[in-house]
């Protein structure tokens, strides 16, 4: 019985083992389920509520309703259904989060890969530029950029992406530096693999682990940053049901209608927590050394 199990395992990649360790991590699995649930909600939001009628339509007759039968999670100060807004908010937050990460990851990865692989002057130049961006706290940078370009989804996305680039560049660079020195890279060079071939086939696949971990954690940070920007008035307009914007809008009513601030707040906390749990879980799974 055991033998056959083993043989089967032999044909599975490292991913299988990572996933197995990940699956044993209860907290990480909880995070994953939570995130999956959020994603499902985001994807199927249309089936749960109507965007136009529930999430956007003002209804002054039903302002600030507490959670109850008519409105599951109550309504906000424009009489919009909070349940509908929070589920469409999942769509927006995840969309911005994922897209931001994708943009800053791809730009950061290219910069980091070039810097790490070629080293020397190229590295020095690129990293000094990254240093410049790193030396400005990212929220200040984001504030300046949004102020310059104006509030709005795409500008917000751009601002967040720009401030995320240096972090990814650094991570990619350092993991490339560790991988680069390994003998299998030298072996690949010995049989004539080109630089690009080495980066793409040998180095990047081996540095993907920390990058994925960073990506999940960064996404969590991004969601938090959006809400902070909303708070200082540089977020999205309220016609977009984004959680951070909901939160800062609800702030003025928080003493009287606490549900309005709790609902999006809890949504943010859950999403961020799920991402953190996944990121931590992945890190542990990829680095079994951390566990006994």
């Amino acid at each position: 019985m055991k033998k056959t199990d083993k043989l089967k395992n032999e044909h599975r990649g490292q991913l299988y083992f990572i996933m197995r360790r990940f699956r044993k991590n209860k907290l990480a699995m909880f995070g994953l389920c939570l995130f999956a649930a959020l994603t499902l909600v985001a994807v199927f939001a249309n089936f749960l509520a109507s965007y136009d009628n529930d999430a956007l339509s003002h209804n002054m007759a039903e302002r600030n309703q507490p959670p109850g039968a008519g409105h599951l999670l109550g309504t906000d100060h424009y009489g919009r259904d909070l349940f509908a807004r929070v589920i469409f908010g999942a769509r927006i937050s995840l969309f911005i989060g994922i897209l931001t990460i994708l943009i800053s990851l791809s730009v950061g990865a290219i910069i980091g890969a070039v810097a790490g692989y070629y080293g020397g002057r190229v590295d020095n130049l690129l990293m000094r530029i990254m240093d410049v961006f790193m030396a400005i706290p990212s929220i200040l940078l984001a504030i300046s950029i949004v102020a310059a370009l104006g509030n709005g989804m795409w500008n917000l996305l751009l601002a967040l992406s720009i401030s995320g680039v240096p972090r990814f560049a650094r991570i990619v660079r350092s993991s490339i530096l560790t991988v680069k020195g390994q003998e299998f890279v030298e072996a690949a060079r010995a049989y004539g693999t080109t630089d690009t071939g080495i980066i793409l086939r040998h180095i990047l696949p081996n540095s993907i682990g920390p990058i994925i971990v960073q990506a999940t954690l960064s996404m969590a940070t991004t969601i938090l940053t959006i809400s902070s920007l909303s708070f200082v008035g540089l977020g999205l307009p309220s016609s977009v049901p984004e959680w951070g914007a909901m939160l800062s809008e609800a702030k003025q009513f928080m003493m009287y209608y606490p549900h309005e601030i709790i609902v999006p707040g809890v949504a943010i906390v859950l999403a961020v927590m799920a991402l953190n749990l996944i990121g931590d879980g992945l890190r542990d799974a990829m680095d079994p050394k951390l566990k006994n």
Partner: protein
Amino acid sequence: MLKFIGKRLLMMIPVILGISFIIFAIMALTPGNPAQMKLGENATPEAIAELEEEMGLNENFFVRYFKYMGNALRGDLGNSYRTELPVAQELMSRFPNTLILAFFGIGLAVVIGIPIGILSAVKQYTIIDTVSLGLALVMTSIPAFWLGLMLMLTFSLKLDLLPAVYDGTWTSFILPCITLAIGSMATLIRMTRSTMLEVIREDYIRTARAKGAPEKVVIFRHALRNALLPVVTTIGINFGLQLGGAVICESVFSIQGLGTLMITSVRQKDVPMVMAAVLFVALTISIVNLLIDILYTYIDPRVKSQYIKAR
């Protein structure tokens, strides 16, 4: 060592120049007219045009940048478009508040976060570990301003223990510092725990145990210092985050610091003020990081001898 510090200081120059350029460029992109802002919504167009001329706003971007930098290098950061007062004066009056926030924030995070992290690692798999990890997780997941508002509601309104907004007394710094500390605290708890766990697996810890050293000595004498080395660097990075996070914290608690100054100035396109504030923040971060690096060379003998030899 001096050479090392000198080199690091020199390396800060291009970074600062780079930052100044980026911010200047961003501010130039920002729509809005400082002259209009200054004169208010009821000003006449002629008056605005005249003032623009006076302020040198109709010159080429690069000319303006080089003029600004030239003055800045001579120590003249210019006058605020908004208040017409020297920028340096305004900065100096605001900076202490932000610095207090950031330092006490990070201090609190260190004083609470590191011991919890150690405890959590030492008691791995126990309820203490689970609770502190859970705590750290929740701490990282809460938006800072939300936390700030909740703290304010609880501690100043409901319990009536602390002032709600800044009023110049030290007690009014307590809530903001806690708010600001939470994020870094979470990072430090997790970081300390994981480096500690890593260190505990090292051979020299096994050697220490094989010597017959009691657990306390093993943890505090042998493991802790090694585990703290990477944590020290994290503190530097977190200090930067603190200065950034201060923006939010200052607006929640109405503290007049660099953060609120930044936001008002960015919004009003007060270029000299924004430039100076960002440069100031960046400079502070660089200096703190340099200090941490110097500290690092002193606590890590490996790095230390490297520099002492290099001298």
